[in-house]
């Protein structure tokens, strides 16, 4: 029981803070933090678990957003179906480009993803302007239908929905982290040659991680589309390509709760500082340098040992070394 609580206390803490922030902070800010943390989760998984840094996340975000937007603009009004289509679009594009991209070394992987973001940006801005309306974007806020139980056209209901989706995504990544597949991802990052000797294909492990991460990103894109009721090429702008990477590193790459802390800190800094001064990006840049110099493990990576030490000071006495060697009890 104690062990199960220790597993989940960080998640409970993070989500309690997020729910509490709804009371004290403006709703749009909290919603943006929730969606941004979903957006960052995939990037964090790729970087922290598989060792791939991706500057192409805006491309997958845009694919999810535009698939949802196209449905809601041209074909239907149900936002849930729109989000589902956004996720499917992310899944599809990941399966198409994944086999090509995951063969590459990490540095080339980063660059080729950035190139994809540029391609998607120009496709949505110019080449497919007949469909996407170019820089004017697709506007469909008023066409989103009211839905029973949770009406996603209402921001307060959307917050609850986004909160539940985020919780489900985090629970899924927690499951991945604790599964043998999570260990496989880490093993391919640590030493891909030795991993092969165990009988694994690095390609298959990486492809699955790529698909999972980018489908998560597309989900965030679909949620942005429904929340804003508007999508423009700006969503895939290569100038925003570093955002999820920054938030990942800021929160703590590969940590489960890092994305939520990173998203909270980054969005908060952006919102607060941009109200005070004009060239806010410059100041945020300096802040980021300072934060990373202070703790290269990011916010959560730095906080976690400190919190564990204080919250579970007596925990070691309760811990026993599990010497069970029955592999049948192992995670599968």
């Amino acid at each position, binding site marked *: 029981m104690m062990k199960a609580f220790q597993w989940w206390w960080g998640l409970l803490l993070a989500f309690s803070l997020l729910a509490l922030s709804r009371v004290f902070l403006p709703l749009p800010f909290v919603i943006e933090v929730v969606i941004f943390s979903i957006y960052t989760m995939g990037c964090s998984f790729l970087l922290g678990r598989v060792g791939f840094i991706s500057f192409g996340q805006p491309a997958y975000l845009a694919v999810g957003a535009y698939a949802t937007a196209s449905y809601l603009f041209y074909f239907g009004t149900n936002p849930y179906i729109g989000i589902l289509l956004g996720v499917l679009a992310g899944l599809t594009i990941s399966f198409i480009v994944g086999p090509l991209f995951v063969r590459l070394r990490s540095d080339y992987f980063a660059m080729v993803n950035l190139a994809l973001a540029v391609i998607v940006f120009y496709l949505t801005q110019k080449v497919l302007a007949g469909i996407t309306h170019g820089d004017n974007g697709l506007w469909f806020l008023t066409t989103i239908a009211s839905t029973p139980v949770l009406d996603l056209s209402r921001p307060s209901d959307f917050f609850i929905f986004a909160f539940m989706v985020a919780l489900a995504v985090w629970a899924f990544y927690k499951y991945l982290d604790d599964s*043998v597949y999570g*260990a*496989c991802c*880490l*093993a391919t990052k*640590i*030493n891909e*040659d*030795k*991993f*092969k*000797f*165990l*009988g*694994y*294909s*690095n390609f298959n492990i990486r492809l699955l991680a790529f698909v999972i991460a980018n489908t998560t990103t597309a989900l965030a894109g679909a949620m942005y589309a429904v929340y804003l009721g508007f999508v423009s090429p700006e969503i895939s702008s290569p100038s925003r390509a570093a955002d999820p990477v920054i938030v990942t590193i800021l929160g703590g790459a590969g940590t489960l709760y890092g994305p939520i802390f990173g998203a909270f800190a980054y969005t908060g800094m952006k919102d607060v500082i941009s109200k005070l001064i004009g060239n806010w990006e410059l100041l945020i840049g300096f802040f980021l340098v300072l934060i990373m110099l202070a703790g290269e493990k990011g916010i959560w990576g730095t906080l976690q040992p400190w919190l564990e030490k204080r919250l579970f000071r007596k925990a070691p006495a309760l811990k026993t*070394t*599990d*010497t*069970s*060697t*029955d*592999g*049948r009890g*192992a*995670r*599968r």
Partner: protein
Amino acid sequence: MTAGEEVLAVKGLNVSYGESKVLFDVDLRVRPNQVVACVGRNGAGKTTLLKSIAGLLKPLAGSIMSGQINLVGRKSYEIAKMGFKYVPQDKKVFSDLTVRENLELGSYATRDYNWDRVTDYFPKLKLLMDRKAGYLSGGERQMLMIGRALLGSPKVLLIDEPTEGLAPSIVSHLKHIFGELSKNAALVLVEQNLPLVCAISDKVYAIKEGRIVAELADRNSIKADVCERYL
């Protein structure tokens, strides 16, 4: 594969690193449950031979047969799945994973979740299950790597310099373990520890400058002073 047939037969193997040729027409045969040692000086090509069998290097010419199946051209993870487990020399485990997670990786790949065999050979691993592999000693790492390779009941274990840098007591333990392992699998060892080689080997290949220069297939002829000529 019929009884008595080689579990591994290397024939006319030529391997190079770019322009530099390392192995020249190497022949090697291993029967089931046989312990075969490769001895030779540093740079003779012993590790290259094991890496080629494990699929990490692509030979220029020659064949590596297991029964009727040629391993040349196959990916290393396919070769591992066929029962050829390579334990490399550098003792680099997955340092950020615990001992348990390292074993789980071996189990998941082979669907062999019976760890009793591993812990029977290496009881110390029982006590280290939750320790990160990066914090293990050299001997413990070697135990973990060999233990992990045992999952899935491999046909052939390719073990590169297993005793390098280990304390004599651990070497003595490994000697006993290799004897036990050979009851269920063939072992191909690259080793410079001649007392160990002489104690457990059924056959010794001496490699010099990429060529097999001697094959000692008679246990009576496998003596330290004979092998020492090739080091």
